[in-house]
């Protein structure tokens, strides 16, 4: 049995997993260390995400993965009610969060540890709230960065 991949936690929903490549591996695997990592320009320290070969700030081509704090702000969200993917059951919150390290450094993600219907009923009470990264470990050493409210 030891050669079998352990199943994901019982509470984790089915997900279609990303294709891990050399360019994005740092992002999908950094959760193993409990960190959220993105590319950062060696020359001017601009964060770059999604991964790109050139810094949009200074056009430098030396970019290295660096750990972020994992803290972010909820920019906007929507509550999905349609069952698009069997096993990935609605309702769930699709959110755009902005990492505290840089204006415009945003991630589309899911919020967890929230009540989707409560958020839908009063969105203005939630937009702008502080959130932090939590990781959902999946097969193939993929750690999906999700976000939860800062208690």
């Amino acid at each position, binding site marked *: 049995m030891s050669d079998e991949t352990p199943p994901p936690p019982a509470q984790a929903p089915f997900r279609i997993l990303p294709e891990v490549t*050399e*360019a994005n591996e740092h992002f999908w695997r950094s959760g193993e260390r409990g960190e959220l990592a993105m590319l950062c320009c060696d020359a001017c320290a601009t964060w770059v995400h999604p991964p*790109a*070969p*050139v810094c*949009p700030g200074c*056009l430098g*081509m030396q970019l290295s993965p660096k750990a972020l704090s994992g803290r972010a702000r909820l920019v906007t969200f929507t509550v999905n009610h349609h069952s698009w993917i069997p096993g990935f059951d609605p309702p769930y919150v699709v959110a755009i969060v902005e990492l505290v390290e840089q204006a415009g450094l945003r991630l589309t993600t899911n919020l967890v540890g929230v009540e989707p219907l409560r958020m839908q009923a009063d969105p203005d009470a939630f937009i702008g709230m502080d959130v932090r990264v939590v990781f959902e470990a999946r097969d193939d050493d993929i750690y999906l960065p999700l976000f939860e409210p800062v208690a």
Partner: protein
Amino acid sequence: MSPRRAPRAPLATGERVACISGIGQSDVGRRLGRDPLALTAEACLAAIADAGLTRDDIDGISTYPGGNSMGNPGFTGAGVSDVQDMLRLELDWFSGGPEAPGQLGSVIDTC
């Protein structure tokens, strides 16, 4: 044999006032182990530098066959939007294969 009619005056079209002011080439080879988009960036930045320009001078992109190559992956590298987004270019015009459908692309660019 004399010409049947006098030669026409040159048309004031783009091709008469265009010039190649800079060129750039990326690394070329099999299994370079580099992101294809990085090769595109290398060539674009080399061409801009060769022309003595900066990123802010670039107002248009022309490419062929263009992004996604009409459903034939591997046939081409980056398309217009890939390059525009990567280099954060502010474009007034563009033309490519799938990006601008044939002659309509020229019409759209003049509007």
